[in-house]
C-alpha cells in the first residue's frame, strides 16, 4: 500500500515527460497529484488505525511527525497543480512556454513532489540526502524555465549554493554514519529507527561536528541567514506554481531534516549548544528578513523574504525545544505553508493579469479586480499574524514560550515582527487600495485554491480540531523522546 505514494508521482513524471505538452496534460498533472494525495490519505488512515509502521524492508517508516509533513506536502501539491492548470495554460497561450518547456515543467513538477515525499518518509538518512539533492536538481531547470537573464542567474545561484550546502550535509551524514557504525554496523546504522534508539551512546565529539555540518548544510536549503542568498532569487524568478511549492513545501522538508538531526544531537551531546545555535540562526533570519522586506520592489521577492522570516521563526522555536515550542513550530510550519502558497497563487495571477511584478505599478486591485485584491489583502493579513488567522495562534504560542524560557530573545523577535508588519502591510496597502492604472482583467481569475488555503488557516486560527491537536502533540513529543 505504501509504495503507491512513490509510484504515482514517479509514473506521473515519466508519463508527462512524454505527453506533458498535450492540451489535456494540465488536467493529467492535477490527476496525478490527486492520486498521490489519495495515497497519502490511505497511508494516514493506516497510521491512525494501527500506529507507526515500517514498510519496504524498514526503508520507510511512518510516524505522526513525517506523516503530517507528507500529508501537507501532498495536499499543497494538489492545490498547486489545480492553480497551475489555469496559470500555466495562460502562460503557454501567451507564448512564454514552448511545448518542450511545458513537458519539462510538468514532468519535473511530479518529480519534485516525489523527491520531497521520499525525503520525508524514508527511514534512511542516506536516502534522505539523495532525495534532498534530487529536489534541488528537479527544480533547478524550472527556476530558469523562462530563460531570462535574471532567471538564469537565479537558477545558477540556486544550483551552486544549494549544491555546496547539500555537500556539507553529506559530510555531516557520513559523520553520523561513522558514529553509529561502531554501535550498529552496516546499512542498519543509517536508519532513523536505529539512530533514535542508540542516540545516547553515539560519540559526542563526532555527533557535534556532524550536527554543525548538517545544520549549515540543510540550513542552506531552509534559507537561514547568512546562507539565504539564493532563496529570494530562486523563489521569485521561476514560474509561480514552482514558487508556491518551493516556499510552501521544500523549506519545510529541509527544516524537518534539521530537527530530526537535532534530536540525535540532543541525545548524544547532553549540552544545549545545538539549541543555542538554532535559536541564533533563527533570530538572525527573522531580523535580516524583516529589514530586507522594506526594500523590495518585486511582489514575489517580497513574499520570498517573508518566507525566510517565518522559517527563521520556526527554527527559533525548535531551538527553544520542549513540547509546547515544538507544537507551536509545527503549527507555524503548517499555517505558513498554506498561507504562503495562497499568497503566491494570488500574486502570480496579479503579475499575469497586470503584466508586471513591480509593486509600484500595481495599484487599486480592490476597485477593479476585487477577487485578486481580497486574496492578496487577506493573505497578507494572515501571514502578518493578524487574528483570527492561524499564524496568529502559532506566533502567539511561540512568543509565550519565549517569555517563559528565553526572555532575552523577546525584544529581537518583537522588533523583527514589528518591522516585518510595517513593511509588508505598507506594500500590500499600496497594491490593493488607491487609484488604479491597470485595466480590469479580461477574464476572472480562478483563485479558489488561494481562498481554500486561507479558509483552512482561518479554521486553524479559530479552533484546532481535537484530532489534529492530538496529532501535533504526538509529533511534537516524537521530537523529544
Amino acid at each position, binding site marked *: 500500500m505504501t509504495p503507491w505514494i512513490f509510484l504515482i508521482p514517479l509514473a506521473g513524471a515519466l508519463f508527462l515527460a512524454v505527453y506533458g505538452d498535450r492540451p489535456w496534460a494540465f488536467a493529467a498533472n492535477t490527476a496525478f497529484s490527486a492520486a498521490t494525495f489519495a495515497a497519502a490519505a490511505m497511508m494516514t488512515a493506516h497510521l491512525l488505525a494501527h500506529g507507526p509502521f515500517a514498510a519496504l524492508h524498514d526503508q520507510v517508516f511512518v510516524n505522526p511527525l513525517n506523516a503530517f509533513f507528507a500529508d501537507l506536502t501532498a495536499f499543497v501539491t494538489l492545490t498547486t497543480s489545480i492553480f497551475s492548470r489555469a496559470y500555466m495554460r495562460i502562460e503557454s497561450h501567451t507564448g512564454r512556454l514552448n511545448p518542450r518547456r511545458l513537458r519539462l515543467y510538468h514532468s519535473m513538477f511530479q518529480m519534485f513532489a516525489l523527491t520531497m515525499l521520499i525525503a520525508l518518509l524514508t527511514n534512511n538518512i542516506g536516502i534522505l540526502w*539523495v532525495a534532498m539533492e534530487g529536489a534541488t536538481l528537479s527544480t533547478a531547470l524550472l527556476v530558469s524555465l523562462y530563460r531570462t537573464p535574471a532567471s538564469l*542567474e537565479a537558477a545558477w545561484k540556486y544550483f551552486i549554493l544549494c549544491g*555546496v550546502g547539500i555537500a556539507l550535509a553529506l559530510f555531516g551524514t557520513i559523520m553520523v554514519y561513522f558514529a553509529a557504525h561502531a554501535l550498529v554496523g552496516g546499512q542498519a546504522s543509517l536508519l532513523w529507527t536505529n539512530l533514535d534508539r542508540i542516540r545516547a551512546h553515539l560519540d559526542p565529539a563526532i555527533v557535534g561536528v556532524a550536527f554543525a555540518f548538517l545544520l549549515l548544510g540543510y540550513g542552506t536549503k531552509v534559507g537561514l541567514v547568512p546562507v539565504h542568498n539564493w532563496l529570494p532569487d530562486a523563489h521569485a524568478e521561476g514560474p509561480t506554481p514552482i514558487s508556491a511549492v518551493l516556499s510552501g513545501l521544500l523549506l519545510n522538508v529541509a527544516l524537518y531534516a534539521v530537527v530530526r538531526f537535532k534530536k540525535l544531537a540532543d541525545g548524544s551531546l547532553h549540552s544545549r549548544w545545538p539549541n543555542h545555535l538554532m535559536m541564533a540562526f533563527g533570530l538572525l533570519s527573522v531580523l535580516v528578513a524583516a529589514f530586507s522586506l522594506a526594500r523590495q520592489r518585486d511582489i514575489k521577492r517580497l513574499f520570498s523574504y517573508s518566507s525566510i522570516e517565518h522559517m527563521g521563526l520556526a527554527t527559533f522555536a525548535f531551538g527553544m525545544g520542549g513540547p509546547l515550542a515544538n507544537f507551536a513550530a509545527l503549527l507555524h510550519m503548517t499555517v505558513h505553508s498554506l498561507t504562503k502558497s495562497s499568497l503566491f497563487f494570488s500574486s502570480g495571477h496579479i503579475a499575469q493579469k497586470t503584466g508586471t511584478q513591480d509593486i509600484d505599478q500595481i495599484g487599486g486591485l480592490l476597485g477593479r479586480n476585487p477577487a485578486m485584491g481580497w486574496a492578496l489583502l487577506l493573505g497578507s493579513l494572515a501571514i502578518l499574524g493578524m487574528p483570527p488567522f492561524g499564524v496568529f495562534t502559532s506566533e502567539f504560542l511561540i512568543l509565550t514560550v519565549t517569555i517563559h524560557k528565553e526572555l532575552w530573545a523577546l525584544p529581537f523577535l518583537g522588533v523583527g515582527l514589528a518591522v516585518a508588519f510595517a513593511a509588508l502591510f505598507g506594500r500590500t496597502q499600496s497594491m490593493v487600495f488607491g487609484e488604479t492604472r491597470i485595466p480590469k482583467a479580461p477574464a476572472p481569475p480562478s483563485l479558489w485554491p488561494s481562498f481554500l488555503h486561507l479558509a483552512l488557516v482561518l479554521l486553524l486560527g479559530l479552533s484546532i480540531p481535537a484530532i489534529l491537536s492530538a496529532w501535533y502533540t504526538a509529533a511534537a513529543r516524537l521530537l523529544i523522546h
Partner: protein
Amino acid sequence: MPVFAQIINMLAALFLLVAFAMLTQRRIVHLINLYALQGAILAFSIIAVAYGTHQQSLYFSAALNALLKVVVIPMILHRLVRRLRIAWDRESLLRAPTLLLTGLVLNIFAFNTALPIEQLAGTVNRDTFAIALSSVLLSLLMMIVRKTAITQVLGFLSLENGLIFAATSVTYGMPMMIELGIALDVIVGVFILGVFFFHIREEFDSLDLHNLDRLGD
C-alpha cells in the same frame, strides 16, 4: 606498517597534491585532466583498502568511482569545453602564492580538527581523514575564488571527491545503495550543468560569472 597501508598513505598524499594543483591551474583542459587524475587516485586508494581489508563491496565502489570520475564526467566536460570554446579561466580573485598560502592554513586547520575524529576510527586508513577534510576545504576555497561557471563546477566535483575519500577513510565508504544514489545525483547534476552552460552562453555570450551578478537584495 603493511605495504598496502603505505600505498594508501602515498595515494592520499597525491590526492592532496592534486587538490593544490587544481587550486592554481588556469587552463580549463588541464583542470579537467587534474580532476580525472584525482578520480583515478580515489579509485586506486579504494582498491588498496579493499585489498587490505578483504571487503568485496569496495571493489564495486572503486569501479563505480573510476567509471564516473575518470571516464564519463571528464568526457562530458571535455566535449562541453570544445563546443563552447573556453580555454582559459579569468584571473582568480587571489594571486597564486596567496592562494597556496591560504590553502596551507586551511590544511593545518583541517589536520587539527581531524585529529580527535581519526583516533575514534578503527579503519586501517584513518590517517587519511585529515587529508580528505583538507581537500574538501581546498575545493571550497577554489569555488570562492574562481570566476567562471565551469571552474566553479570543477571545484564542486572535486569537493564531492573529497567527501567520498572522507567516507572511505573513516568507515570504508557508505553502503552501496547510498553510493549509487550519490553517483546518480552527481551525473544528473553534471548533465543539468551542461544544459545551463548553453543557456548562459546563449544569453550572455560568455561563461563569465560577473554577468550573473545583477540580482541584488
